[in-house]
């Protein structure tokens, strides 16, 4: 098998749209999904005489991202023009950064190796740039339509070192990166909406060889798993090529998801000469020390830190905490429930169980979930102190989701408050024994394993209100 004789070397370029209200260099809205060409103005249409003015908020978010990824933020960075002709690039150049990027030299930890050490992927640079518009080739026969709503939306490009060695590693890197950016609250990081896009540089070499092989660039992946599959396909292709005595040619390839294969891009990307030069319409970007240290001070808690803190504070396991911190919204919700109820374990069970199940059908967002953490905590408290049973609790939760009412209110309205009163329970037990004479006889004759069945009948009869502990006790005395 040829692939065992080679090692995959991958570096990823990730473009991320920043979550600003307005575009990078003009006041137009960045709303996704507006009718074509509505969010445009003389600046982002590149009308003659219009000039860019940098959106400070974009710098703020880019700086936050850089700090969160452990980069050094450069006190002076320079915008540059990347020149090329394309109909969805109105100015004929993209404002980007070239030899003096906003930030350099970061890293992310994507997991542990066999020896228990961190697997770390280096980040070469993070720079600011603007998005292009969209070319729509399939709407009008024989013509291409241009939508410039996206033109000028602020982006950061995060370039990794060629530290990735497997397709799974690439996936892990992307998931980690996405999670960090979510926690930093700088982007929607949605591949579906195009707010996160990935290009991969891949080469192969015999393991142990220090120099890098000739790389190709793979584009057009629309999901993390597509990235993994594309890397596998291109790895196979390069290995086979070398094995057959061929040479890898530096080129740009497009992932074809339907055919699970890569094919050469029609445009000769490799031969592009972007003629970069410093953007004369913008002054160098100067970020002062104090601004950086303030940004560092106000950096949101990152996923790793939050995992450790939640595990420690609420006594939950490593596996559980991984699930709970998948997104910042989920971990915020959990933390609020756990804190208000004082019971991390139940909070975990309820959030990962009932809450996610309730959200699933609508694909809803936990940040806007109808049952607020404080309301769920109240329900948890009612179950814990025995006011309602666990079974009743689930019914109450269902009603809360449906009606938006408080737990205590629902429990009272539905008559679900747990009954601990001996007389009432004794009545239910007697009724059950007389309604199920066969089970009753066998049970009273000593068939102890039927106790569970009888408890079930009592719970059903009481509509979950009977305290199961008492029911068990009472049955035991009868049976005994």
């Amino acid at each position, binding site marked *: 098998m040829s692939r065992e004789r080679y090692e995959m070397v991958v570096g990823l370029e990730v473009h991320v749209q920043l979550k600003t209200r307005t575009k990078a260099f003009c006041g137009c809205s960045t709303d996704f999904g507006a009718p074509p060409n509505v969010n445009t103005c003389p600046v982002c249409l590149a009308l*003659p*005489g219009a*000039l860019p*003015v940098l959106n400070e908020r974009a710098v703020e978010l880019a700086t936050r991202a850089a700090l969160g990824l452990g980069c050094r933020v450069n006190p002076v960075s320079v915008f540059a023009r990347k020149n090329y002709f394309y109909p969805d690039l109105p100015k*004929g150049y993209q404002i980007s950064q070239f030899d003096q990027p906003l930030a350099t030299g970061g890293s992310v930890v994507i997991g542990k190796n066999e020896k228990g050490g961190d697997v770390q992927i280096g980040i070469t640079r993070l720079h600011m740039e603007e998005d292009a518009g969209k070319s729509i080739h399939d709407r009008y026969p024989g013509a291409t339509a241009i939508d410039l709503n996206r033109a000028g939306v602020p982006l950061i490009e995060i370039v990794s070192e060629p530290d990735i060695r497997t397709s799974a590693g690439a996936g892990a890197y992307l998931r980690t990166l996405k999670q960090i950016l979510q926690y930093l609250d700088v982007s929607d990081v949605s591949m579906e909406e195009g707010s996160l896009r990935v290009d991969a540089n891949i080469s192969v070499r015999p393991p142990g060889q220090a120099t890098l092989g000739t790389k190709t660039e793979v584009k057009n992946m629309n999901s993390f798993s597509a990235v993994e599959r594309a890397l596998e396909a291109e790895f196979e292709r390069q290995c086979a090529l070398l094995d057959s005595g061929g040479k890898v040619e530096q080129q740009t390839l497009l992932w074809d998801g339907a055919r699970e294969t890569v094919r050469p891009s029609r445009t000769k990307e490799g031969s592009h000469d972007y003629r970069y030069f410093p953007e*004369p319409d*913008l*002054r160098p970007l100067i970020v002062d020390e104090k601004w950086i240290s303030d940004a560092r001070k106000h950096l949101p808690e990152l996923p790793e830190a939050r995992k450790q803190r939640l595990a420690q504070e609420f006594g939950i396991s490593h596996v559980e905490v991984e699930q709970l911190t998948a997104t910042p919204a989920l971990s915020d919700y959990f933390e609020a429930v756990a804190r208000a109820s004082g019971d991390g374990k139940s909070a975990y069970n309820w959030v990962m169980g009932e809450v996610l199940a309730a959200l699933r059908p609508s694909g809803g967002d936990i940040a806007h979930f109808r049952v607020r953490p404080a309301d769920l905590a109240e329900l948890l408290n009612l179950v814990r102190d025995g006011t309602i049973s666990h079974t009743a609790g689930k019914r109450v939760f269902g009603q809360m989701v449906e009606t938006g009412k408080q737990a205590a209110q629902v429990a009272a309205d539905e008559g679900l408050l747990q009954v601990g009163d001996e007389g009432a329970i004794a009545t239910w037990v007697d009724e059950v024994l007389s309604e199920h004479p066969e089970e009753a006889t066998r049970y009273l004759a000593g068939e102890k394993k039927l106790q569970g069945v009888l408890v079930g009948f009592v719970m059903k009869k009481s509509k979950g209100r009977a305290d199961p502990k008492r029911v068990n006790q009472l049955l035991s005395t009868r049976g005994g």
Partner: protein
Amino acid sequence: MIRASFQRAREIGAGADGLNIFLHSDESASLEEADAMKRHLESAPDAGVLAGVPVAIKDNIASLGLPTTCASRILAGYVSPFEATAITRLRANGALIVAKTNMDEFAMGSSTENSAYGPTRNPHDVRCVPGGSSGGSAAAVAAGITPIALGSETGGSVRQPAAFCGVVGVKPTYGRVSRYGLVAFASSLDQIGVLGRTVEDAALGLETIAGFDKLDSTSSDAKVPIYRLSALGGPAPETRSPDTEAIRLGRSPVPLAPSPGATTLRGVIIGKPKEYFPDSLDASTKDLCERAFDRFRSLGATIRNISLPRSPLAIPVYYILAPAEASSNLARFDGVRYGLRVDPGKGLKAMYEATRSQGFGPEVTRRVLLGTYVLSAGYYDAYYKKAQAVRTLITDDFRSVFASGVHAIFTPTTPTPAFQVGAISDPYEMYLNDIFTVTANLAGVPAMSVPIGRVRRLPVGGQIITAHFDEFTMFRVAYALEAALGAEAHQ
């Protein structure tokens, strides 16, 4: 005033079959505007320092109402949906925009012969060019059609036509006037400038349009003095705060004619850079400069011989940097969103090629190609980067001269007076017209040309250069020279 402007334009033959000064104007709309202004003035006498004054605008400055074509086929008929900040400020002070003036296509040229709509002629001698690229604006002022016109500079495009047409032309410090709405040629050099019949007209025009603009990141928030006060001599006595919106200056508190004796230059040191007085300099031009130096001396100024040793490198540096930026700035004229589109129906690339080949004239094409070349991989360091380094040295020369105590530098504006239409066909020879003016653009310092006499019938201009943002001293020297020369300035 507006009626008189159009009357004068007719008398002098400013139309396309005559001097060919204007590309666009609308007399009836202008007269309506003037009537509205007249009614407004009856109720509001404080309608601005330029209330009712007709102003002509170079056709590369975006205006509402009249087209903005940059004298190019590629923008034929294009009307901007927004207006340049400089024009907004003129209007806010009561000015009426009466016409858009002819120019070299995209401001690339020194004679206004590179217009897609035919050359403009010099009002002093119709066989001669008016200079360029702001030739139409200079000719409009010289012909007495408007007292003030806006032009633009990248390498001397206001000062050189001002010199050829015998008017005053000012290029302010880079960043002094917002470039918002000025169609970019070379963004790091471009600056809107003012042409005026007198120093005062030019000062008034610049006061109106100068100041910070949040729409131009390279505009400066340095305070803007009332330049007309420089007529009184002495340092800037009053400044106004930077503005973000259009400014209304109100009625001027300034005496409109300087009192006799106020124009002394006692204590002022004027530098005479040897690099700007080469042996090859036209003898008559040199004599007129010497006469100006004599006047400076009689006004009490000290003349100091200085050197700006890197100035001779300015032309090659300029013709690397300006085309480099132009090649990128003109990429937006691609036939996709506005302007000319020529589509042979053979795909996107063919559409780009046909549109741009037919839309741009030969000089624009030459510079776009040159600029694309110098920015190409493998050539960037040898050309663009090196040129930037030399640009810094040229700027350092100016800084050290002004740091040594020199207040202003005086040079000829151009090596020769106006030449005849069609006389220069070699592009490089044409580029040498800017030899004394490009340095100020490269260094970003303010500079202006004032009439200092004539050779035969043709005007000659003298150039005054001062330190960054010291337009006040520049105007002070200009006022003094204008007053001292009197009628000699036009003899």
